[in-house]
């Protein structure tokens, strides 16, 4: 059951990500990103992270992507034109991606014995357990988050200011 769900939603996630890259209209790309985010939420759910899954849907699919669609819809962003791609992408991008992939593969192969095998659905982290850690051991990061939000609010207001 876990495997079936993982395969379905993993495939959906990858398909959404590919579609995101291949679509020419930004709004279609944004919608594919929503599909990616939502299938990621299901994958979190499979790993037993209930709260994280819900937060993923509420914050990413619900809030951040709304801003994306707003910007795309209202700035009148049209279809993008096909270009040959920048030179930088060919010179640095592809070799860079290849190196990264090789590095990751190498680490996985050489260290595969040291990983603890975790089966999907083995651990279930309840919201209460999560908050027990968050509000005792991780209290400082939690409070700093609110300062971060405050700074972001100031930034948002500054961003929208009239130019003087």
């Amino acid at each position, binding site marked *: *059951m*876990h495997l079936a*769900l993982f395969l379905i939603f993993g495939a959906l996630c990858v398909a959404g990500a590919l579609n995101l890259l291949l679509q020419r209209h930004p709004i279609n790309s944004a919608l594919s990103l929503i599909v990616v985010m939502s299938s990621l939420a*299901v994958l979190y*759910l*499979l790993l*037993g992270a209930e*709260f994280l899954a819900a*937060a993923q849907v*509420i*914050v990413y699919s*619900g*809030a*951040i992507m*709304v*801003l994306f669609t*707003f*910007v795309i819809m*209202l*700035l*009148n962003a049209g279809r993008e034109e096909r270009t040959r791609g920048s030179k930088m992408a060919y010179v640095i991008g592809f070799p860079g991606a290849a190196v990264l992939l090789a590095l990751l593969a190498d680490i996985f192969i050489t260290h595969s014995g040291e990983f603890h095998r975790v089966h999907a*659905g083995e651990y*279930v982290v309840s*919201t*209460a357990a*999560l*908050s*027990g850690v*968050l*509000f*005792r051991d991780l*209290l400082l990061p*939690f*409070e700093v*988050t*609110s*300062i971060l*939000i*405050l700074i*972001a*609010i*100031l930034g*948002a*207001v500054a*961003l*929208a*200011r*009239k130019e003087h």
Partner: protein
Amino acid sequence: MQNHPYIWNYIPLLMQVGIVGLMTLGMVTMSWFIGRHRNLKDKLEAYECGIPAEGDARGRFSVRFYMVAMLFILFDVEAVFMIPWAVIYRRLPAITGSQLFGFWEMVVYLGFVVVGVFYVWKKGVLDWASDKADL
């Protein structure tokens, strides 16, 4: 039902999403094939109360809408952080060892956010009627 792995609780939810999705798809398809189509040029133009349409509806809009979306993200993150706190609030005295520690945790957290709300308010971002806002 207790013996099932926990993911079984979510399977009906996923099934519901699937069934409802299929149903809405069926509705859209059926209505396309059931109704007859008599396409006239006037009928298929954008509706502007019978007057020929002026331009199209692709323009720019007030920056306030973006502001609302941006502020929504920030406050939504804040609200999401409050929910785990609320879940455990009853048990926090036992965890932290102090009667009101959990309360002050949230007061500090909310304090910063309230400063943010107040700032945005005074900047006139939330006042949709005035043109004096610094936008």
